[in-house]
């Protein structure tokens, strides 16, 4: 038997919450056999298939792109399909639902708050004028694309919200991913939506709730760097506040 195919057993504590009983959440321990290539997600699936069919959690793609399997693994927000049991053995493993979100059942959290925030930042291109399809595509240079490319990689996994203490302390904060996506469109050369989005950006619950903890950028599985998106917009919001942005655009800088 090589190390790759050897089967070992790890103990996993999972936070359980049953909305029907309404009793406060508690941990339940499962013994899970695993091999070198067993992800935490597959471990959870083993529990559901073989040990306890009542365990609830979300997943879909199993390959770090759908963004549905985020959980707290030993207190750190991670994609469970992108994390491996071998890295925790022989110690125990603790799995909690994503921090700061209301729990619906077990590891499934309610993302409604984020969906409404995402909605509020108008996450779509607002062009200067609508071009009929016959006039062809909006052209963009690679340099212009660089300005927003990494912010467009977000998969809405919400790890950054679970990582953000300011979101936990003040849930009205628009938060990392939504603000990063707000900036993703503002930074796009084809977009002129700054003023349509500035209400959200300039408000107390916009960029100004951020204290640059920076953990959002640390945990993001797609290198979106929400902390960078938010903090460069503190500068923009300040320039806007003092009327400098307007001045710059009248003399032809910016878009």
């Amino acid at each position, binding site marked *: 038997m090589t190390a790759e195919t050897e089967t070992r057993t790890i103990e996993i504590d999972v936070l359980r919450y049953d909305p029907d009983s309404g009793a406060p959440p508690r941990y339940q321990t499962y013994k899970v056999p695993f091999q070198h290539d067993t992800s935490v997600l597959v471990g959870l699936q083993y529990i559901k298939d073989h040990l306890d069919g009542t365990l609830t959690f979300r997943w879909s793609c199993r390959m770090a792109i759908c963004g549905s399997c985020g959980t707290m693994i030993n207190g750190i927000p991670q994609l469970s399909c992108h994390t491996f049991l071998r890295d925790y053995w022989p110690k125990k493993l603790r799995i909690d639902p994503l921090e700061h979100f209301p729990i619906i059942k077990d590891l499934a959290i309610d993302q409604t708050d984020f969906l409404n925030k995402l909605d509020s930042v108008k996450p779509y291109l607002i062009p200067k004028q609508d071009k009929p399809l016959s006039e062809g595509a909006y052209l963009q240079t690679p340099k212009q694309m660089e300005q927003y490319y990494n912010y467009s990689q977000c998969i809405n996994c919400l790890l950054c919200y679970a990582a953000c203490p300011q979101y936990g302390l003040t849930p009205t904060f628009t938060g990392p991913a939504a603000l990063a996506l707000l900036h993703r469109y503002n930074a796009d050369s084809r977009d002129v939506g700054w003023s349509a989005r500035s209400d*959200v950006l300039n*408000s107390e619950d916009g960029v100004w709730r951020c204290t640059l903890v920076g953990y959002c950028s640390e945990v993001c599985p797609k290198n979106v760097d929400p902390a960078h998106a938010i903090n460069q917009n503190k500068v923009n919001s300040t320039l806007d506040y003092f009327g400098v942005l307007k001045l710059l655009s009248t003399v032809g800088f910016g878009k």
Partner: protein
Amino acid sequence: MKRANDPIFWSMFGAGGMLSALLGPVLIFITGIAVPFGFILPKSTLSYAHALAFAQNPIGKLFLFVVILLFLFHSMHRLLHSLHDFAIHSPKEKPIFYGLAGYGTLLGLISLLSIGF
């Protein structure tokens, strides 16, 4: 959505953070270590006559004022946010923290003006 007045305080926080990052260590070295103990710099560097001349010089006066203003507003802004980090929120927090910074600045301004030109 209510527009935040944070740009005013954040600008001062940023300017003060930059100024204290660039000059904080060397100022502390000069006023607290080198001069009082005659280490590298002579003790007379900050004698009454020298200090007075510096504070009477318009540039020296402006420098002292700006350092006090920005160091105070930088630190009060950050400490205010630390309060939130400890999960303490109060409607009076802004008047208290920025008020304190403003009061210190005012004391400095009055002193500097009374020193004359």
